[in-house]
């Protein structure tokens, strides 16, 4: 092997293993959801729901994002990843940590195994963050870089609070209600990690995929400050006073940040040269619709929580599942087939461009399977959320059967891309 190929191969292995484990977690998540379907109409603070939520947020959502960032960050910053060993070590701590945490949540045994799981996860996440910071240490004054780094800080804070909550089960040292901290933990993860990260990465990739006319970054800068300011306000105010009327203000500030991001994306969309919207991009569009639905529900939750109405709990389940299974899942289900084929294509064909006829990255996945996946995801969306809204277990289960099939199809297609055998015409 040429020594110059070594870093590329190291990066390739690190990235695709993250994609693969994440796809496996998605199948596991779908199975767990079907088993615990009956509990989805009850209180969200249920052992199996906690297990499912962590499987979705960490195993499915976060692992694939780690892989994507390892691939994307060096490209954006025109540098190499600081350390591949750190990346592997992070993954090596993350996977057993996740397994221990999810299993001990599922059987609700808040003892040593859950504590070990939380510490392993925190360590894995911290090493990931360290790798990102050291890769980006030569600051390039790039707004996308700011989004990624800030999101990593939020993720580490989320994991730290999560670990504290785990220890609080046994030692009860936190001075306030456990559910209050759970709200903070959840929003640090959902808004601090996922929302800020997705905003940064999507505003880099979507204009490139659509070939949009260059957009000014001022909207993104506004979005960055509004999202972070709103979230900080929410965390501090909720910590001291619980959910109250000021929570609306925090929600409105974050919402204003989302509006700036959406305005940026819609300008990119309207000025795009590439007219065709392919299936992966359709999945992304659907994901933004789900995000919009979740945002509409948020004031309803605050309204009912302030009144101490039980409906706040029901709407919280709907809100959480719209974000995790709707917004984040739909985005991943589509963007995987924008990013993974490119990663595999680069490995097999990049050195051959111009000297041989190579397939395109989009030729590496099965389009029929992706179409079936998209249609099944639409069925899942309609049946599952209708089931949650009307508290119908039958519709919830029907939706979950669809998401299980989505997970299987997704896994098959990911494997198809990873096992692609190069074919070259001279």
């Amino acid at each position: 092997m040429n020594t110059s190929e070594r870093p590329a191969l190291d990066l390739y292995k690190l990235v695709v293993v993250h994609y693969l484990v994440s796809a496996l977690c998605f199948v596991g998540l779908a199975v767990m959801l079907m088993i615990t379907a009956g509990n989805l109409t009850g209180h969200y603070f249920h052992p199996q729901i906690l297990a499912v939520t962590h499987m979705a947020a960490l195993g499915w959502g976060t692992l694939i994002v780690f892989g994507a960032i390892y691939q994307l960050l060096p490209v954006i910053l025109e540098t190499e990843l600081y350390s591949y060993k750190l990346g592997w070590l992070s993954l090596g701590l993350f996977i057993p940590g996740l397994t221990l945490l999810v299993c001990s949540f599922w059987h609700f045994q808040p003892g040593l195994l859950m504590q070990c799981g939380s510490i392993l996860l925190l360590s894995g996440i911290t090493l990931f963050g360290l790798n990102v910071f050291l890769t980006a240490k030569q600051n390039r004054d790039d707004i996308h870089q700011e989004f990624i780094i800030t999101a990593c800080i939020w993720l580490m804070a989320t994991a730290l609070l999560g670990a504290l909550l785990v220890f609080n089960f046994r030692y009860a040292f936190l001075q306030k209600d456990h559910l209050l901290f759970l709200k903070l933990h959840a929003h640090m993860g959902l808004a601090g990690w996922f929302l800020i990260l997705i905003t940064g990465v999507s505003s880099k990739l979507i204009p490139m995929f659509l070939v949009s006319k260059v957009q000014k970054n001022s909207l993104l800068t506004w979005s960055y400050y509004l999202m972070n300011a709103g979230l900080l306000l929410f965390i501090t105010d909720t910590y001291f006073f619980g959910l109250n009327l000021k929570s609306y203000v925090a929600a409105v500030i974050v919402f204003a940040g989302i509006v700036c991001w959406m305005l940026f994306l819609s300008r990119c969309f309207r000025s795009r040269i590439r007219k065709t919207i392919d299936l992966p991009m359709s999945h992304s569009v659907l994901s933004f619709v789900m995000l919009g639905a979740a945002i509409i529900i948020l004031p309803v939750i605050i309204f009912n929580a302030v009144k101490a109405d039980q409906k706040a709990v029901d709407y919280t389940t709907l809100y959480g599942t719209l974000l995790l299974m709707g917004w984040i899942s739909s985005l991943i289900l589509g963007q995987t087939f924008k990013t993974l084929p490119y990663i595999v294509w680069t490995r097999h064909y990049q050195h051959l461009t111009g000297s041989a006829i190579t397939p395109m990255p989009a030729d590496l996945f099965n389009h029929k399977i992706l179409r079936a996946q998209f249609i099944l995801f639409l069925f899942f969306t309609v049946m599952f959320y209708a089931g949650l809204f009307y508290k119908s277990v039958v519709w919830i289960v029907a939706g979950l059967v669809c998401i299980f099939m989505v997970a299987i199809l997704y896994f098959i297609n990911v494997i198809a891309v990873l096992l692609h055998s190069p074919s070259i015409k001279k």
Partner: protein
Amino acid sequence: MPPVNIREISIRSRVMEVLRQVIDPELGINIVDMGLIYSVQIDEDAREIHVSLTLSTKGCPMGAAISGGVENTLKLHFADYSQTVSIVWEPAWSPQFISENGQKQLER
């Protein structure tokens, strides 16, 4: 005014023609129609070809594939010349640089 070198003009147009074989892997259209090639300089005496190109955005994930593709193509078709490829950012690429042919392909 420097004398017109017919041979250099001829080679430059051949270079542009072969560079049409380099396809942007994400968009599926060639980099000449994409407007990514900013200049082709030929030095007949030094037997040298220099291509300046840009990318649609800084940090484009396809950057290495595109610049590598240009090098491979030049090596394949102009083996008796040495080749250099540089990536430039001024002026910043704009979709207005896409040729009519390229626009038609993207609108499909």
